[in-house]
């Protein structure tokens, strides 16, 4: 179903700083057709500015939002050279985009389907933010809940969107400044308890730093809850040719590819300790 990728030029039309150093970068790409219009949650783009020869490959970013008018945005934070350059990109800056990439296979929520627990951390929010947005657009705001963890208050962003959408939120911060004290697995554990006691059918959809994903996976699998993980692996190409983004899995092949087979994987199949 995913539209085949293309590479196109875009320009930064908005660089919005959120707290905690997070940035929402909005770009204007071509219109009719808008290459990213049909992007599904979990799909991503490879972005590259005028970086000269030092930074070689483009960088991968989940699509936060993409509209039919060719506008799209990503959410990021300065990490290394590439993300720093993008966080500093000013209006009008040219950005080369490849996308939409990945299959992005979160189940779409349905009225009689399981409750989707969206477990997010750090820059893992975007695909789950888009998943929630689509649910809301489909009038299914009650079928998704956000479980969101960070170091402190500043590490939790875009909360107002979820409030506005009427999506239930369970927050956790390591310093306890907002929500529960501890990792996001604290509210997740309780929520899974509750679901079990209620015989409520739930799915876990999670994206965030790998250590968090590992904890979420262990917890959810121990409760035998179906779990989808949106993974991040180092990528050179993003479209299945460098074979750099291998994800170790169980199955007929020992590795699948984050960019073409994912980035969303069934937690059970991921070959992690």
């Amino acid at each position: 179903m995913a539209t085949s990728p293309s590479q196109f030029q875009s320009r930064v039309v908005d660089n919005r700083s959120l707290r905690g150093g997070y940035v929402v970068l909005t770009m204007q790409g071509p219109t009719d057709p808008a290459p990213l219009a049909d992007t599904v949650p979990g799909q991503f783009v490879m972005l590259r500015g005028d970086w000269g020869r030092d930074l070689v490959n483009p960088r991968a970013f989940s699509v936060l939002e993409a509209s039919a008018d060719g506008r799209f945005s990503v959410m990021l934070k300065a990490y290394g050279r590439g993300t720093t350059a993008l966080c500093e990109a000013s209006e009008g800056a040219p950005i080369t985009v490849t996308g939409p990439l990945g299959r992005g296979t979160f189940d779409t929520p349905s009225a009689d389907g399981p409750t989707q627990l969206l477990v997010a951390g750090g820059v893992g929010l975007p695909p789950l933010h888009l998943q929630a947005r689509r649910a809301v657009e489909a009038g299914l705001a009650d079928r998704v809940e956000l479980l969101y963890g960070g170091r402190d208050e500043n590490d939790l962003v875009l909360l107002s969107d979820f409030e506005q959408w009427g999506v239930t939120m369970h927050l956790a911060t390591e310093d306890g400044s907002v929500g529960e004290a501890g990792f996001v697995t604290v509210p997740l554990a309780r929520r899974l308890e509750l679901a079990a006691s209620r015989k409520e059918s739930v799915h876990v959809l999670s994206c965030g730093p790998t250590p968090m994903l590992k904890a979420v996976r262990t917890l959810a699998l121990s409760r035998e809850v179906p779990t989808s993980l949106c993974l991040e692996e180092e990528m050179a190409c993003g479209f299945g040719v460098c074979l750099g983004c291998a994800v170790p899995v169980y199955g007929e092949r020992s590795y699948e590819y984050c960019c073409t087979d994912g980035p969303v994987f069934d937690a059970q199949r991921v070959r992690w300790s």
Partner: protein
Amino acid sequence: MTAAPRPTSSLTPEQVDLSCSMGDLALPHPMMTASGCFAYGQKFAPFMDLRELAGLSTKGISPKPRFGNPLPRICETAAGMLNSIGLENVGAEAFLAEKLPFLADLGISVWVNFFGEDKDDYVRCVEMLNAGKGKGIGVLEMNISCPNIKKGGIEFGTVPEVANDLTRRCVEASDIPIVVKLSPNAGDVPAMAQAVADAGAKGVSLINTITGMAVDVRTRRPRLATTYGGLSGAAIKPIALRMIHQVHRAAPDLPICGMGGIASGEDALEFLMAGASCLQVGTSNFAKPIAALTIREELRRLMAELGIARVSDIIGCIEPIPAEPAWSPTIPGT
């Protein structure tokens, strides 16, 4: 010095003849894509008309399918990247059945990059790939630099005698012309080139990646699961040019397919002038899937600007810089 000398006579891009040849192999222009950086071609179809390429080199093929290395497999370095993919591939049989037909239909020069676990395995691979003769395989590009292969594989790429014997056995077994892809990790690359030429190789591909390493100071671990990987990209371009020039000077009649950090038309022209007969683009494909084709157009425009009518006019054309007037302790004529 600041102002580049203006061309004596400049041409229009249309007047430039890009056609060239790698030995007996005639090509419409020099730009091919490099092994491991173009998969089996299909994945690039959404971005470009593959028939525009002069040719392509496939991901390295082995007799049996191979899984790749653990991750991380890649990391970026200054103007380059390290990779340790582990020569993952679908295997010769699946390649012939599932990948080759698509490539054959393109009508471009298909180079099948291959390797084996040991000498017999190399020969086995050749024998299997012979089935592709007349079915689309134009060249067998023999990769003798597989840092990731255990079994003493290093020697294939670094010891002339070993490379000569391995090449001879593969050439004898092969119904298809063999071009040997040399390792830049060898101490004496011209000797390696001569050794494989003597064994019947129709040409050499230069250069493969250079073994390198990067450290993650936070985890105190290497950035690649295999510790070492192959360095590619603009960073290695000066080393690639040097090796190509050395080999071209030592064996002017041995065709060279040049690569190593080619990202622009000017890069391409540097390689041709250093002695390469055709070119492959590797790492640049990742950031820009159509890199090889944009480079071809840049090359065409640059040649026009410089008044170069034919690619064949400038292969290996570079001349030494003229000597300075002899030094003397006093000013002549005073």
